[in-house]
């Protein structure tokens, strides 16, 4: 089912009573989650991702704005009537019930004509247990399961009522690194098999990028950008999105566009023409973001940095260097492990891949489009 958020806002009264101003957890959200897709809500801690999820689930009521499931306005519909399945960060499995009883629990709430017999409940529970591949563990208690298995039980419990929307709050954050990799593929598989519109919250950009059909990037309660992971990575709308996506993070420099040249420090590193933007006579200050993979070592390269160290990672090599115009203390370039790095007097020269270079306004940090000439 398609989910539409329309100018959704959630304010909380400030904990500190001396401050009258409300905390705005979610600020004027408007976007549409397409039907049957896996959507990752991404942002740093405290950016309002979980609140957004709670608003969609109905556990929290918005201060203003509307929420639509399909064409139905569900803003005033309480959580239990929205038909959502919710998976909690800590799974919230009932410790005193077996896995099967946990999965059957939501079915026991059905009343009237929907009421199921014990047999039917068991059959349905077994069906989802098979789907998430825990059908051999149904007699155990949550305590006797590993983190990944508990996670599956939680998903099974959320799925057993065949919700129209599945919501997951940081579903992978309680798992160790190896299990996380496995479970996220599992998550994508389950979503794919059921075709249920799924929204999950994460602060781990890699997690979001790897399995989402689309990602929504948030910051301080504000919507930043939505799109296919690769699109958002390749065309970040602003400096925050550019910095937030990608490991190692993008290298940011202070630069100037003068005429049709982009200067970082004293070096003109690229000839370009800005789209829909004027360049004043004395140059325009910009932030220059260059992805670590955007550096090509070249003796005649336009861009020079002072080498700090070279980290060999096997598959590729990481060049750690410093540059006076860089925002961070060190910058990092990822190059192929067989590429030669020639340091002359501690200086390494690079050519820049223009597609990996992004320009942002120095004042409002929004993207400036350009084309290379």
């Amino acid at each position: 089912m398609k989910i539409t958020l329309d100018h959704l806002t959630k304010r909380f009264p400030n904990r500190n009573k001396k401050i009258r101003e409300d905390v705005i957890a979610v600020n004027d959200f408007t976007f549409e989650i397409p039907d049957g897709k896996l959507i990752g809500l991404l942002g740093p801690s405290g950016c309002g991702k979980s609140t957004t999820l709670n608003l969609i689930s109905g556990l929290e009521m918005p201060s203003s704005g509307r929420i639509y499931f399909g064409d139905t306005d569900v803003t005033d519909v309480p959580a239990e009537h929205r038909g959502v399945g919710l998976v909690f960060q800590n799974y919230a499995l009932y410790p005193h019930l077996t896995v099967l009883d946990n999965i059957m629990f939501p079915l026991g709430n059905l009343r009237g004509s929907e009421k199921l017999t014990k047999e039917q409940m068991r059959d349905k529970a077994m069906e989802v247990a098979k789907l998430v591949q825990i059908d051999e563990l149904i007699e155990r208690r949550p305590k006797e399961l590993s983190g990944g298995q508990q996670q599956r039980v939680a998903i099974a419990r959320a799925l057993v009522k065949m919700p129209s929307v599945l919501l997951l709050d940081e579903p992978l954050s309680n798992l160790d690194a190896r299990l996380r990799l496995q479970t996220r593929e599992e998550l994508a598989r389950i979503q794919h098999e059921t075709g249920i519109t799924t929204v999950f919250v994460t602060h781990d950009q890699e997690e979001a990028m790897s399995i989402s059909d689309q990602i929504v990037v948030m910051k301080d309660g504000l919507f930043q950008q939505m799109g296919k992971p690769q699109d958002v990575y390749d065309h970040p709308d602003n400096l925050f999105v550019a910095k937030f996506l990608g490991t190692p993070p993008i290298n940011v420099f202070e630069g100037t566009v003068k005429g049709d040249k982009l200067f970082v420090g004293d070096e003109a590193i690229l000839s370009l023409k800005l789209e829909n933007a004027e360049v004043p006579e004395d140059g325009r200050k910009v932030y220059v973001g260059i992805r670590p993979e955007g550096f090509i070592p070249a003796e005649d390269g336009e861009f020079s940095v002072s080498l700090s160290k070279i980290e060999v990672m096997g598959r590729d090599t990481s060049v750690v260097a410093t540059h006076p115009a860089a925002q961070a203390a060190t910058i990092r370039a990822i190059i192929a492990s067989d590429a030669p790095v020639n340091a002359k007097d501690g200086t390494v020269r690079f050519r820049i891949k223009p597609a990996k270079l992004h320009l942002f306004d120095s004042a409002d940090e929004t993207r400036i489009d350009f084309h290379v000439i």
Partner: protein
Amino acid sequence: MKEKLRQYKAWLYLLPAILFLGVFMVYPLVDVIVYSFEEGFNFVTRTSQGTGFFNYSYVLHDPYFVQALKNTFLIVIITVPVSTGFALLLSLALSSIKPLRNLYQTVYFLPYVTNTLAVGLVFMVLFKKTAYTDGMVNLLLNAFGAPSVDFIDGPYWAKMLVMCIYTVWVVLPFKVLILTSALASVNPDYYKAARVDGTRPSRIFFKITLPMISPMVFYLIITGFIGAFKAYSDEVALFGTDLNAAGMNTMVGYVYDMLYGASGGYPSYASAAALLLFLIVLTITCINLMVSRRSVHY
């Protein structure tokens, strides 16, 4: 050699505890068992006329003991479920309100820090019939057209009623305290999960809340049983020291009376009664533990 030295050392460290426990716990316990089988033991001459089950037979045939047994059992059977259930209701109410919660919590906790005898005095004002007044409760009863009842010196059921109300009132605060903190420690995510699934409040209570706090409820029931079996000072606060005359004696009261009461000086009878009480408490606790294995979730 070294091994032996280590063992000596271990015993040396244990010595203070062993000494104190031995002198003040083990020896008296053994002594009580010995007393209870010695017929007509005399404290002064420290002699007895023989050994056997005579003391037990005497105690079990003593109408005062039978009365004390009956009273104790009534108090246990009535006050433990009532106070635990009532405490659960109060705690649920307390944890579902936000404003004034701290005030209510303090109010409910007051009886716990109030002296038993002071509380007894309050109950006197409420229930005691004197030459000047019939007591608050009787005034209330009269207002509804009911006749006065002498709660303190009157019929048995009236006295037992006051006794039970008093006991429940005294034990309630501790239970409320324990249960409110138990309720507060239940992860709110469980309730959220249940809410999203559309669970009815009654089902949430019986399927989630109660199992989650069951260890604490069980703890309260066990300690409640034991506490009620040991009731004595509350009875004194209400009915004075001559509990046998009032017909409101308890088992601990009987033991005390046999030792130090006006008609006392019979350590053998007291020991036999004390051991009987111990056996009863042991049995009940064992039953409790067996029941709990099925219904308590840790």
